[in-house]
């Protein structure tokens, strides 16, 4: 494994070179919080942050994306026929993504890149992006990545892991894509043997700071219908206002809507983020709604992430422990608490309550 040492004095110059070859996004401060945006020439990512308020999912999966264009003008020879919208899949890079958010893309990939169908927009945008992770030396109090399949120095889904060692960065090239980006930046100084040791000790320190944990080991043993009928959903959903904030912030929420938008005699068919928190998400044309109450909708969100996903892909949970939904929920619903309730649920113990 190649580790490159980047002197902080070479930082700005390298970023400038990266921008000649890649459309570069990074975290920048916007009022009170950080968010990812495409960096202009000369603009540097601000790595002095805990995590961004919104997840970086929109870099690969924009909130609104045009798929097709069409003409409604009958004089047009191709009227009413969908045409591919122009797309730009030239190389992109995101610098400063947290390891949890990078590993979230791998969870979402299972949905969009399947043996039967591939979402060409998500797949091509993902493949054209190089992910340069900023390891977390100081996790937040709401971070529970280490028990959610990720971690502050986790390398899954990253092309490069960047560790801040004070006077310099150590860049661990994880993939060929990562190697190429480091070459482009002109960061070529091979770090000495102490670098890996230093990264390892920073990692241990960071992991030790994470005090928030979830248990997920029993989820796949639970019966779906029993968890679905569990009495605690009433309590969990009671305060929810179905605002959908959790789904918009979440790096692993991928649900979307398809809409036609017309302007005069032409229009576009687009994909837009949608949310399982909204009644319109599932309502039938007849007015019947299979998820007609907020209890249904809250239960769907947690069951999807913590049970259906686990069963469907025979994997871990559809959550990387970034903690955004916990920090931003206006009524303090906490996925860690729900996860533990689900993981430890025993329908027999609740039998008296059901009566």
């Amino acid at each position, binding site marked *: 494994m190649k580790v490159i040492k980047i002197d902080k004095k070479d930082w700005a110059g390298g970023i400038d070179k990266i921008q000649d070859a890649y459309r570069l996004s990074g975290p920048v401060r916007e009022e009170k919080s950080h968010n990812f945006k495409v960096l202009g020439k000369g603009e540097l990512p601000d790595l002095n942050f805990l995590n961004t308020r919104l997840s970086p999912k929109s870099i690969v999966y924009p909130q609104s994306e045009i798929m097709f264009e069409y003409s409604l003008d009958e004089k047009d020879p191709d009227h009413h026929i969908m045409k591919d919208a122009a797309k730009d899949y030239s190389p992109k890079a995101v610098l400063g993504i947290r390891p949890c958010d990078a590993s979230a893309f791998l969870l979402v990939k299972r949905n969009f890149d399947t043996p039967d169908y591939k979402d060409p927009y998500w797949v091509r945008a993902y493949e054209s992006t190089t992910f340069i992770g900023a390891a977390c030396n100081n996790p937040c109090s709401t971070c529970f990545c280490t028990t959610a399949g990720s971690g502050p120095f986790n390398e899954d889904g990253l092309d490069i892991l960047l560790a801040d060692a004070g006077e310099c960065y150590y860049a661990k090239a994880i993939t060929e894509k990562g190697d190429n980006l480091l070459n482009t930046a002109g960061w070529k100084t091979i770090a000495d043997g102490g670098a890996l040791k230093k990264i390892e000790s920073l990692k241990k320190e960071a992991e030790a700071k994470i005090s928030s944990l979830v248990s997920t080991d029993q989820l796949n043993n639970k019966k779906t219908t029993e968890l679905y009928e569990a009495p605690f959903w009433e309590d969990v959903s009671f305060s929810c206002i179905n605002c959908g904030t959790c789904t918009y912030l979440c790096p692993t929420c991928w649900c979307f809507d398809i809409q*036609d938008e017309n302007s005069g005699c032409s229009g576009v068919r687009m994909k837009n983020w949608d949310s399982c928190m909204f009644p319109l998400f599932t309502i*039938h044309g*007849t007015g*019947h709604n299979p998820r007609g109450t907020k209890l249904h909708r809250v239960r769907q969100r947690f069951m999807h992430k913590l*049970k259906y996903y686990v*069963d469907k892909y025979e994997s871990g949970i559809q959550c990387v422990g970034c903690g955004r939904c916990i920090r931003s929920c206006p009524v303090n619903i906490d996925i860690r608490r729900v996860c533990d309730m689900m993981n430890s649920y025993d329908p027999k113990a609740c039998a008296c309550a059901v009566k």
Partner: protein
Amino acid sequence: MIKGDIKVQNPYMPYPVRIDEIITETEDRNLKTFKFVFLNPGDEDKFSYKAGQFAELSVTGKGEIPIGIASSPTEKGFVKFTVNKVGLVSSYLHSMKVGDIMGIRGPLGNSYPWDTLEGKNVVIIGGGFAFTTLRSSIVSMLDPANRKKFKDINVIYGARTPGMLLYRDELAAWERRDDIKMHITVDAANDLDWKYNVGFVPAITEKKAPQADADTYAIICGPPVMIKFTQPVLDKLGYGHDHIIMSLENRMKCGIGMCGRCNIGKEFVCKDGPVFTLAQLNATPREY
């Protein structure tokens, strides 16, 4: 800047089609059958389907709706869909005319389990306008090349009134055949010449459906209230839940298991369904 072309097959791109014929099916004029012809030769072969699958009808500028395929794979040169006028897209579609251009995307979903049904007795139970993929199935099973693959075929089909039955000419033609047992019924007949059954589907099922055995499968499609009262009848006749086959509907957008709204538990109605056995449904939340 390099403009990337989409190399992988784009599952969101509809095949362009022309409306070739529109038939008003029911006396309330809320159900019309649309016959589509593919604009590009070759697209018909790509749209190779089985009875029980559905497609997204794409009305350019309005949106898409998931509709069961009413034509049979044995019918060539066109595809047919019967659409109830309900929402934005279906209402607009009802105002379109022969010759108009739109799109269809599919085929989508699984189908009725034709491998399992081969060599078996098939009992089809349908109600109201949920008879479209059942029509596809009957036409397909009655095709001379296919009929010998099945034993007895019973069809119980009901609507509110004679004028609300779909495909009335075909129903009459099937009544005259001796290789399919038709049990057509209406809730109430306003027609003095009505010569078939009167009564709700569950009651007619109780009277006419064959007793269950290992070689007999029931396919049931209809409004929730019909299914609710027919299921106990099938239980009484001894049908095992793995011998009761149902086709579900849910709100859908993508039709390929990605957009996230039509799931019942871990199964997507659009991709893992819409056809499930009752045994499968018993293990999932009933969110349909």
